């Protein structure tokens, strides 16, 4: 038997919130009173600001560029999910989901198994981040879990494609505010933004898709903050994509619980005990970014970077410098004496010049990706297979790659410039500098490049005819009233 009065009770207790305990007591030194974050210029609590934005957002009022960004995000994310669904980590996640034996309400992208929306979100999230091929927004892949969570929720609730677009925009804008408020959360704080910020972003998006009223949303957000997790030490292991899957599942769980009256604290973000202070202990935090919610769209103002190659993002400019020099070197590959790669300081932390012993290591080896690019052209999915690593021509050339840090190359936000110098045995040399990689804000991918990446990804798991239909749906996602047979297309027969 549900005891509704008790539920009201707690809520009542809570809505009086921080103040209740303070007001109840005559005792000094009140931790709760200090915590009442509303203290900052009598401002509204952040979760209430977010709730108003989430509940009030309407797609018809959003600038067309914002909607177009969302469309491309759906195409890109669907592509990397389809390709990622073939990865070992995704298979292990699906095996675990199968054990749960849950209700068959939603599709898992790239698999035949149907399961509950929460568990489909988990499997989808793992697949989306499995290859680290998903797009970067601000400083990380913080919105990676949003689309993986939205799709199964839409399938089970019958929400429309346009609803999904609105929900995605909301989730991305919320993520952007949290990241702008605490820019050092992941690089210095050690928290993987995909798992931490991603949980909150997914919850915000799911609350929107479920059309929850503004007064329920602080609970949803508060629950998601309590579930937010993921430490950076697990980069390079299967647990990194699990952060995305877990965050996607958390988003649905939080929205489902919050919609039914499950409570959380409305002051969960601010104050001495709040999310920012707790997760970024001692690091700089500013709550100002929350003020421009709804009046500015970070999806356009800051934009995101699509990854053109399925390997470490810091190596992309070096790859493109190599592709440019490839034309100059032409057939004289055997004459190369040295390939010297100069990168920025921060890029140097993420890439190396060792010959990779594994597919995973190949993604972070500048020696491998540069040599591969010179020999074979742009590295796409087939470049990162056991098979490709056996190529003696690439291996021989990789031995000639050296690297260093060039202090002139700035570590500006989201850039990782590279200079490449190829010296031939005869002494002749060619140089190329690349400041921005394809897919970055400055060099956006063309529609043709976006579709080529999608097709390359989808081909890992389906025929071109099905891939074409999926692409057609996603290209018109913001105008569609129904998903029609979309769910059968994204599953494996």
């Amino acid at each position: 038997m549900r005891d509704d009065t008790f539920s009201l009770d707690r809520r009542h207790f809570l809505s009086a919130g921080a103040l209740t305990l303070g007001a109840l007591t005559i005792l000094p030194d009140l931790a709760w009173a200090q915590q009442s974050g509303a203290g900052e210029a009598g401002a509204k609590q952040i979760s209430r600001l977010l709730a108003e934005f989430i509940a009030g957002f309407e797609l018809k009022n959003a600038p067309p560029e914002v909607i177009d960004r969302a469309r491309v995000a759906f195409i890109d994310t669907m592509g990397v999910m389809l390709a990622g669904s073939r990865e070992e980590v995704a298979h292990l996640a699906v095996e675990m989901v199968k054990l749960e034996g849950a209700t068959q309400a939603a599709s898992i992208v790239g698999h035949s198994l149907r399961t509950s929306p929460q568990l489909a979100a988990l499997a989808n999230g793992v697949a989306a981040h499995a290859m680290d091929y998903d797009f970067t927004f601000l400083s990380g892949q913080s919105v990676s879990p949003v689309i993986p969570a939205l799709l199964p929720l839409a399938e089970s609730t019958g929400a429309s494609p346009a609803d999904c677009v609105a929900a995605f925009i909301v989730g991305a804008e919320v993520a952007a505010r949290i990241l702008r408020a605490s820019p050092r959360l992941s690089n210095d704080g050690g928290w993987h933004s995909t798992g931490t910020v991603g949980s909150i972003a997914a919850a915000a998006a799911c609350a929107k898709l479920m059309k929850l009223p503004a007064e329920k949303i602080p609970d949803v957000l508060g629950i998601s903050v309590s579930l937010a997790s993921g430490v950076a030490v697990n980069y390079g292991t299967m647990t990194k994509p699990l952060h995305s899957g877990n965050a996607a599942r958390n988003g649905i769980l939080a929205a489902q619980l919050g919609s039914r009256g499950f409570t959380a604290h409305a002051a969960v973000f601010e104050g001495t005990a709040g999310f920012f202070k707790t997760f970024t202990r001692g690091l700089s935090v500013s709550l100002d970014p929350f003020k421009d919610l709804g009046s500015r769209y970070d999806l356009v103002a800051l934009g995101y970077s699509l990854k053109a190659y399925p390997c470490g993002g810091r190596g992309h400019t070096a790859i493109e410098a190599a592709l440019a020099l490839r034309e100059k070197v032409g057939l004289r590959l055997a004459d190369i004496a040295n390939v010297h790669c100069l990168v920025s300081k921060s890029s140097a932390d993420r890439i190396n010049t060792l010959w990779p012993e594994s597919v995973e290591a190949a993604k972070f080896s500048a020696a491998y990706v540069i040599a591969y690019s010179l020999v074979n052209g742009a590295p796409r999915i087939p470049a990162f297979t056991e098979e490709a690593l056996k190529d003696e021509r690439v291996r021989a050339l990789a031995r000639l790659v050296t690297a260093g840090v060039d202090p002139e190359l700035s570590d500006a936000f989201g850039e990782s410039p590279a200079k490449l110098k190829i010296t031939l045995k005869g002494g002749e040399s060619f140089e190329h500098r690349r400041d921005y990689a394809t897919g970055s804000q400055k060099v956006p991918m063309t529609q043709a490049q976006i579709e080529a990446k999608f097709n390359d990804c989808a081909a890992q798991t389906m025929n071109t005819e099905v891939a074409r239909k999926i692409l057609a749906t996603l290209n018109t996602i913001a105008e569609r009233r129904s998903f029609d047979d979309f769910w059968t297309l994204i599953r494996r027969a």
Partner: protein
Amino acid sequence: MTKQSGALDRRRFLRRSFGASAAMLLGLPREASAQQAPASAAGRAMQQADAKRVSALIADFVTGFDIKAVPQPVIDRARTVFIDTIGVMLAGSHEDVSHLAVAMVKGEASAPQATVVGQSLRASQQLAALANGVASHAMDYDFTFMRGQAAAAVIPAILPVAEAAGATPAEMIAAYIIGAEVVARVVRADQDGPLFDAWHTTGIVGGIGAAAACARLLKVPAAAIPDVVGIAASLASGFNANFGTMSKPLHCGNAARNGVMAALLGKSGFTSNPAAIEGRHGYLNSIGRDLPVSIEAFKDLGRRYDLVEGRHRFKPYPCGGLTHTTIEAALELRGKVGTRISEIKSIHCFVARSAGQRAGTQYPSTVEAAKFSVGYLVPYALIHGAPKIAAFTEKALQDERLKALAVTVTASVDPELGPGGDDSPARIRITLADGQVLEQRKDYASGSYRNPITPAQIQEKFLDCATQIMSADAARRIYAFLDTLPAQPSLDPLWPMLRKG
């Protein structure tokens, strides 16, 4: 088709690269990575104790643990914690927060692998663990261990796993001891320090202990246990901002579920970083950025049992733990006041600083607030005696005699009583109409390690809890089974007793 080579790949990649940064991997100049050197204390601690990683120490402990070598007091403590935890789980399963969690679990319609305690529903191991965890922490009436209720998620997680695996009572007890001891070691990385200050240990630590316990029950091989530990570390969450809301018990449920999931994934070959606990940008380093930690505590795993040597407390009253000394001071004064309740002119409570941060004096308008209000608890204890579950109902709050007495209650923080903590000393001064002053100070509430709970109190608490949802006969049968748990041949009779109808 799965790609085994891919799995091996990642694993191999990791073994080479964990804890390392650019410096080790790269042919790049040193200065490029000099700034990467572990500036953090966690990083330094790791280097000092380089002999063995935390996850390897845990793996040795989980796989090498032999219950036959465990001292009897540890087994007795474990048995008592099972009684206490299952009791509060049964009572908590009736709380609204549990109904909401179970409604969600029902929606998942998962495979009926295990009992959800206090419900008729059966669910997957993970979801049963989640619902059990929420129920056991729902009333905040569960076992306090090391720092807060740090091990609260362990039993909720192992019950369904033991049921699904057909484990024996001895195996289940072994799993609990393992889980609790691992939790204790994580807490001891910074037991009284600021590391865990903002975090709810039930959530942030509990999942790691639950994972270790489940790894034992699932017979995860030693080589995969570091993966289990690393996955659990990455799923750990829960901080204090949500105290006083339903999300607090959710921390326990989520930690219990994560423990099961981490063990299942790790067993299947899912990888994580073996340095996840102590490494740079690892668990300890991230939750307490740059704070000093020690991983020495992990070295006495198997040699010392924090279940008997560490701080712990069984809660005798279902309300804020920091109010318990005040309640017991009032219970002692009750004998002195006798029938002169109506002659009380004033009641002043002196409390320690930490209690001052949580407790209030005003008469509560809700059941939840009553649990932290000395303005309610002291009059209740004086008039009715020890507050049990029945004290925290809408009906109990309507009592006019309590309201009248509450008006006379005031409180202040007394610096002489210290900062407070798991033990929070308190003093009450009652002034009667004729000017007589009665005083009582209480330093340790019953249930603490200084003032241990008696078997009779444990039984009384269990029966009070269990009878919230079942007959006294049914409650006594469960108690009899749990009280002899180590000697029981099988767990089979337990599961139907824990289900509803």
